[in-house]
């Protein structure tokens, strides 16, 4: 029997301390609202605050819309690049990485300049139009994650050969997309979708500058005006993100693919 190795355990314990201690401290602080004893009063206060539910629902709705638009945009793009236009892949990969390089504040000021109420396409002239603009902005923001997730899924299934196999069996493009590609990149799509959800739910800059009642600006408002509630909110935000990650893991346990 081989001896248990100490090094990896030390690394694991150090990493656990690094990640868990601040979180545990935040959680512990969030329970101190009531003097002299631990309680969930901060959490209760948050759940009683109508702005909490409203902003959370708003951000959830925007996140779902972002995921739908993102998938509709990214799935055909990633498929076309992989199967029909592989020469354009470096260009598209560069473009999808731009949102990581350009700060969100620059992007949103660009939007405001292009789509303000006196522009040729006044997207900020009404709340609904601004919501649409925010969704598009989030699609851009989540693009690096969504594109990479879908592209990796395409590579894993060898989309090109599967497409050719389906074509030789008489299938047209729609049949190939619906019956061959989509079911086989399902896990990759869900992975991209959950990452998008996690990004959108806590985003502050774009929502704030476009003046939308999202969860990010609400967290910022609570952070500047309350004592214990921000910690409770941070714990809730962590829980939501972890739930997303857990769902990715759960769905990822689905069927294996061919080698």
């Amino acid at each position, binding site marked *: 029997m081989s001896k248990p190795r100490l090094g990896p355990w030390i690394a694991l314990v150090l990493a656990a301390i690094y990640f868990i201690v601040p979180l545990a401290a935040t959680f512990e602080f969030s329970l101190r609202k009531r003097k002299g004893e631990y309680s969930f009063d901060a959490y209760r206060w948050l759940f009683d605050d109508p702005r909490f539910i409203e902003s959370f629902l708003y951000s959830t709705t925007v996140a779902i819309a972002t995921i739908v638009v993102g998938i509709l945009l990214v799935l055909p793009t990633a498929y076309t690049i992989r199967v029909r236009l592989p020469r354009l892949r470096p260009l598209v990969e560069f473009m999808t990485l731009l949102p990581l390089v350009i700060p969100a504040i620059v992007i949103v000021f660009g939007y405001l300049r292009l789509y303000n109420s006196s522009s040729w396409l006044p997207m900020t002239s009404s709340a609904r139009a601004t919501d649409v603009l925010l969704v598009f902005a989030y699609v851009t923001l989540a693009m690096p994650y969504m594109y990479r997730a879908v592209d990796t899924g395409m590579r894993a299934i060898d989309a090109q050969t599967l497409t050719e196999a389906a074509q*030789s069996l008489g299938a047209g493009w729609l049949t190939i997309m619906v019956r061959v590609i989509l079911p086989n990149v399902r896990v990759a799509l869900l992975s991209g979708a959950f990452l998008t959800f996690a990004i959108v739910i806590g985003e502050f800059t774009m929502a704030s500058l476009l003046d939308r009642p999202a969860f990010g600006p609400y967290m910022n408002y609570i952070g500047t005006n309350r004592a214990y509630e921000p910690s409770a909110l941070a714990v809730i935000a962590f829980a939501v993100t972890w739930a997303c990650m857990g769902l990715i893991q759960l769905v990822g346990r689905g069927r294996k693919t061919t080698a």
Partner: protein
Amino acid sequence: MGFVDLEGVRKVYGQNAVVRNFDLSIARGEFVSFLGPSGCGKTTTLRMIAGFETPSAGTISIDGRDVTGLRPNQRNVGMVFQSYALFPNLTVAENIGFGLKVARRPKGEIAARVAEMLGVIKLPQLGERYPYQLSGGQQQRVALARAIAVKPQVLLLDEPLSALDAKIRVSLRAEIRALQQDLGITTVYVTHDQEEALSMSDRVVVMSDGRVEQVGTPFEVYNDPATRFVASFVGTLSVMEALVVDGSAGRLRIDGQEVAATRAAGRARSGETRSVALRPEAVTLGAPGEGRNRMRGTIEDVAFLGSVVRIRVRFGESALSLDTFNSPGSPPPAKGAEVTVGFGRDDLLLLEAS
């Protein structure tokens, strides 16, 4: 006019011609292999027949119909890929029935055809399994069943056995050939494995650098190679330089030893130097009988290959290989031993002048 006709087919990527003026006529029910090294254009030609690549010039027709401009799903050709390309989300039965479902065949007909195909590939119990639950050989059988379930006019196989281990490769190639003969389906098979091509095909198309080097039966290609490339690519050959002593009589001199070559008679000019070639199995160790060529040389190398022992004999500048069957009672001669080898006058191939 054949069942599948390729006329003047070319494929050019930028400045690079991958397939140059490919002409071939394949008869109905024929099994034709494209054989050649990597990059010779064999897969590109197959993909042009399938419709995955568009020829830069030339026409492709199947059963008299010009299919050059048709999309792959309009050609009625079945394709088997090296990587199997089974749909991972579908069961074996669903994979086999995919083409029939796309063609909107009735459910009962699909079920019957799938059951029939599972029987043909000898996997009747595995219909409900997923591809990842099968071995490589089983996956390729399913891919074959899927391709023929739709009763295609032409079956195309792109190095279907390359990813499998040696034993399965040998058994599966016999199965593919038997199935092809049973169904009488016109088949084009791409491979770089000469043994596969020679053992399965009615005709072999040897390709090099985008060109057809030779088209012939396996017997013709192996025994009477048209070009130096075919001679060197198909089988093992010992190539030697020979001085033509008498071109009309086919008398040659190799490293000072005179030999006769029936095939050289009238095809070589006296005084010129030509390349000649010999198959290892055509050469015998020991003094040959009357009417055969004999040469004296030194054993340079002895390679034990199991059932066969390959011996390399040097004559000076030239050397040749010969195969003898392994016999536990008589071990092969040692390196450095002086030996006499013999070969028939018909066995010496005269290669084209370079």
